[in-house]
């Protein structure tokens, strides 16, 4: 297991390198440059040239690329071209909010989706099953920004139960959780739907297995058969969905942060793209790619915990 973990961990760096390289090329191909955007129409040629020189943007692209790789190898993600602050401090200011939001969405999706899928499988073709299927289809079909706006209008605007914007007061758990509720629900909806459907399908398959019939004939309780023996087997494909869905959730934070006016990595990334802040775009991409890779590594390790037959060598 340890060897497997080390081998998988060693793949993180080449994966992130590939992502960063692709983004580096793409972001430099987009029309416009940060000096133009930042200085606006009042810029003189001399000022624009001076700014590009200060940022190293007058160097050939391959020189900029290798300079950048050398810097990130030493832990220096650079300085934001637009704000002048270090990329690390920019990310540090907003990453906790995004992390809370993303993890909350994943937690909601799994803690609601898995039991819902189990019940749907247990009561296959009953009204519970039909409601679960229709609800999940509706959630898959509904864009998360639309759901976010509806939740905002209903629970904040009309009922006044929950706050509308921001992340709350750090250190006050009630404030943080109340500000997290609506955005997390909106962000989790799509993943919850997929988790529900996959759990249902997987459980239906597992419940037909011979070992389940054997357990039943031995008098094992239904509760134990479902939640202890069958679910564990059914969760393998569900974990795959969660791993891939985590990427969707990370991408969805951009829209949800905009709707709920929350600071976050998503908003930072969008502002960096429109402002042609190459440094921040790459820093955000490194962070998002690292988080995504780590989540999937955790998912792979969970496979082995769930199924002892899986051995990593």
């Amino acid at each position: 297991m340890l060897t497997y973990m080390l081998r998988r961990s060693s793949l993180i760096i080449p994966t992130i390198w590939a992502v960063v390289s692709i983004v580096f090329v793409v972001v430099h191909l987009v029309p416009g440059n940060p000096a133009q955007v930042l200085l606006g129409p009042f810029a003189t040629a001399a000022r624009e040239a001076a700014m590009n020189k200060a940022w190293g943007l007058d160097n050939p692209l391959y020189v900029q690329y290798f300079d950048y790789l050398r810097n990130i190898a030493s832990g220096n993600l650079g300085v934001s071209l637009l704000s002048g602050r270090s990329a690390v401090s920019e990310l540090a200011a907003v990453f906790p909010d995004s992390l809370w939001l993303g993890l909350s969405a994943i937690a909601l999706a799994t803690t609601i989706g898995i039991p819902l899928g189990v019940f749907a499988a247990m009561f296959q073709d009953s009204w519970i099953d039909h409601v679960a299927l229709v609800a999940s289809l509706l959630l898959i079909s509904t864009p998360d920004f639309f759901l976010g706006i509806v939740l905002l209008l209903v629970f904040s605007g009309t009922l006044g139960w929950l706050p509308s914007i921001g992340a709350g007061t750090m250190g006050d758990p009630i404030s943080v959780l109340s500000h997290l509720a609506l955005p997390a629900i909106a962000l989790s909806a799509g993943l919850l739907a997929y988790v529900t459907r996959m759990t249902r399908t997987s459980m239906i398959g597992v419940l037909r297995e011979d070992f389940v019939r054997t357990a039943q004939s031995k008098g094992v309780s239904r509760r134990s058969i479902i939640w202890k023996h069958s679910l564990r087997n059914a969760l393998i494909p569900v974990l795959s969905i969660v791993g891939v869905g985590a990427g969707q959730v990370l991408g969805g934070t951009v829209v949800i942060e905009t709707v709920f006016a929350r600071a976050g990595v998503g908003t930072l990334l969008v502002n960096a793209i429109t402002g042609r802040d190459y440094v921040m775009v790459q820093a955000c991409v490194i962070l998002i790619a690292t988080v995504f890779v780590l989540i999937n590594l955790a998912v792979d390790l969970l496979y082995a915990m769930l199924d002892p037959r899986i051995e990593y060598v």
Partner: protein
Amino acid sequence: MSQKAWAKLGEAGYNAHPVGTGPYMLKSLVPNQEMVLVRNPNFWGPKPAIAQIDMKVIDNNQTAALAVKTGALDIAQIDPVTAAEYAHVKGVHIVVRPTLGRTDYLELNTLIPPLNNVLVRRAIRYAINYPQLIQDVFRGDAVAGYRGLVLKGEIGYDAAVNPQNVYNPAKARQLLKQSGVSLPINGLFFATYNDSADIQAGQLIQEDLAQVGINMKSTPLERGTLARYQVAVTTPANVFGLSLSPDPNLLFSLLLVGSAIPPNGLDTARYHGIDTLYQQQLNAATVAQRVKYLKLIQERLGNDVPAIDLYVQSDVWIVSNNVHHYTPSTEYNGDPFYLVTMSPS
């Protein structure tokens, strides 16, 4: 501003750590997201009544308006369409302030055929339905722009030579016929901003022009790409939104005086028709002389049409009823910050 701080921190550093003598100090800043100001205890003037001002950047007007309604914000600047939805909502009120110079211009490239034909440019000006634009996009909180591009209230404004633009599609068609250009005119576009009001306005302008035989496509672009189109020689037209001072020289030097425009300036028009008059009014010995040249400039711009002043917007604010007597400055453009909360002393 502190010269010492500027020299020590440089421009980028100073922007993150400003040093000044105003009534408020910067407490914290998350660029493009949030800014917190606190009262400056060493302020030389009267003590400010408000101890702390939190400002948040909120891109979505609906979110901002809802935040004011729920009490998360005290004040927000929003678009007129959203304001109309909240006009009768309990707990909030709408404040509208006509601004001096928050204007959108459609700048036309005077070198590209058929826009190099002045009759075509005049036809475009007549073809745009200003009243409908103002009603549909701004719910009436704007006025039609001015032929001579100098705005009412600015120095030298002369209503006799610089009336407001009028919608006259019959006149537009007549001018196009006189121009000798074959219709329909195809292959043109104008770049514009990609926020909802500009997209909607662009769509309406595109439809108005199509009705007289000019197929000029509205092309909303994000900020970085728009910056490229603003300086490209081949761009037929651009929409620019500007908030200008009471002096029209800022408009001239930014858009219309070829010799004064910086390299990244908004020189879509490639126009030199008022270069000499501009210098003359700049060097005028008296105000009266300057006003005389400004009148000539307005006449020239009205005739040559290197740009069309589409509308002059009002600023619209949604304000919590807990805030009394909120009076934004007519010269203040609050975009992109919205006040979150104001803590009284």
